[in-house]
């Protein structure tokens, strides 16, 4: 059984690069700590996190809920500055949000007053290039298979469709890094399985880097090339596991089953398995 070595940084050349990796960013998180001032005192959320995402790599972050993984994503997105440490995209430090790094949240957060088409067009409109780039909106809708719903309003969509629109709204920006904050967390299990497959093929076709936060161990193993496991708050990286399996993966792959056991062990849930 091939279980990848743990606690060892994968070399980028070990990872099979997806089809077109030219539009992908390298992300370096260097000694980042972060906390909030709560009424009851300082709340430390992240402690000394070091993380490297190679261009085009798919990295999943796993950890107990509320440990601070989502906070790390907000820092990488540039929505908040880190209390200590620095985060780099390629060679520039990340100081504010940028359309090259797009977040997809657990809730689709579509704007209810906009049609599906206008929702997907949001990024291009915000950047002032919608007029020239209209075709990108249709292309993004086609990628997620919703070109027939362009004129629908968000409340007319099912949960899975809404999350697909949110994906299209992200993809239309041609992101170099896709930040996924439990994007499938609220979907029913069948839709989730279906969309896991779609995420893999979108990633392979577009070649961006992906940072995925999830609570679902199987989802992480099915999707990611590398799984980073965090401790409870304040979150530290416990270990990393490289998943050197080809895509498309199979859920009953014995290697993945073995890795699942190991990941659960690392999360302190080994006995429950």
């Amino acid at each position: 059984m091939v279980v990848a070595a743990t606690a060892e940084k994968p070399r980028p050349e070990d990872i099979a690069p997806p089809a077109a990796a030219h539009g992908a960013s390298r992300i370096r998180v260097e000694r980042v700590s972060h906390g909030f001032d709560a009424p009851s005192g300082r709340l430390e959320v992240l402690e000394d996190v070091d993380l490297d995402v190679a261009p085009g790599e798919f990295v999943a972050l796993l950890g107990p809920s509320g440990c601070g993984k989502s906070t790390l994503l907000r820092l990488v997105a540039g929505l908040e500055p880190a209390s200590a440490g620095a985060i780099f995209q390629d060679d520039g430090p990340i100081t504010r949000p940028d359309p090259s790094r797009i977040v997809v949240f657990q809730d689709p957060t579509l704007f209810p007053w906009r049609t599906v088409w206008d929702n997907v067009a949001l990024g291009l409109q915000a950047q002032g290039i919608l007029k020239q780039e209209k075709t990108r909106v249709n292309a993004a809708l086609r990628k997620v298979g919703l070109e027939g719903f362009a004129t629908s309003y968000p409340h007319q969509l099912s949960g899975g469709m809404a999350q697909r629109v949110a994906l299209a709204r992200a993809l239309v920006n041609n992101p170099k890094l896709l930040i996924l904050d439990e994007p499938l967390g609220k979907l029913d299990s069948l839709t989730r399985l279906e969309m896991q497959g779609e995420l893999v093929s979108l990633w392979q076709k577009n070649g961006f880097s992906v940072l995925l936060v999830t609570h679902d161990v199987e989802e992480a193993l099915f999707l990611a090339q590398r799984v980073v496991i965090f401790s409870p708050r304040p979150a530290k990286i416990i270990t990393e596991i490289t998943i050197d399996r080809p895509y498309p993966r199979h859920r009953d792959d014995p290697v993945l089953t073995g890795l699942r056991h190991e990941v659960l062990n690392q999360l302190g849930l080994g006995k429950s398995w």
Partner: protein
Amino acid sequence: MSSSAIATAAAPGFERKLPPPASRAASTVEVFPAANVASLETRAAFHPHWQGLAAALAWGFMAAVTLAWPNQPAGFVEDWPYTTEFGIATGVVAAICAFLAFAASAHVRLLHRACAVFRHGAPWIIVSALLLALWEILTAKTGVLPPPFFAPPSSLIDAYANDYARLADSTWNSVKLLLEGVAWGAAIGFTVGVAIGWSRAVNYWVHPILRFLGPLPPTALLPIAFFFFPSSHAASVFLIALATGFPVAILSWSGVAGVNKAYYDVARTMGASEWFLIFRVAIPAALPQVFVGLFMGFGSSFVVLIVAEMMGVKSGLGWYLTWAQGYASYVNMYAALIVMTVIFSSLISLLFAVRDRVLVWQKGIVKW
């Protein structure tokens, strides 16, 4: 017969407890043709539309009362004018009702739309005829409600026919004054509300003023306003704007302050500027609340308009009311009240129509 056909068609499906999916589908297919046949049968038949016939009868009754029952000679009114004309008009309404009732019964395709409206409104058409008849009987026919304080509906025609110039002029001036004040109030209230909701600094300075002065009824400022402003028109515009602006500002503010913060995160990661966040995120998200404010503001603007016109402005429907009262011409007062009702309810309906257009995305989310 048709219902038993449905029952027998549906029965096999119920008998089999656990049918395989294919046969279950087959049994449901059987049900639908039976139902279709039934509905086709009813469409072809002549089905008397009883409510429509009752409406025709009620208006016929109204016409008969007006024409056949002589008016009660009362006090200084020698006879109520336009009684015959009113009777004929109600008779025409009765004839139209009878025609539509027949069309609805025979399912005339050409009048399909008109019949649908008529069917929906039939109960109200009946009730309004009966209420009008009651009104006519209590005033002109029996004198239970005596002149000059009460007038029969037929006499309103007199007021409109003889004083339409003054009434139209008053209506026009009222609408102009109202819209001028409401436009200023809505624009300023909306701007102030959005600014308070968006900017901490504006919130710090303007919010307390709004909280302190807002609850003051604008009508209380009437005497001062007439003194400070160069004309009674300007004073009225100011007071109407104040009445409209306060609720609009408060609700625009709460709308902007209540916008889901995740919307801003989404827009910011996609490169949105501050301008974009205000005009493309905050304001559209707050619009449902803004419309609630507009409805409230419209309501209080009507009060201020009428009071201001009664107190100082030399034209308008409020002025017309006091003028008619001065001449003890209560028929004209009723006529003006009816015009007022029509104008104000039309304005509110117009606002509803605008909201339905602007907030079309809310359909299906909110019950309205």
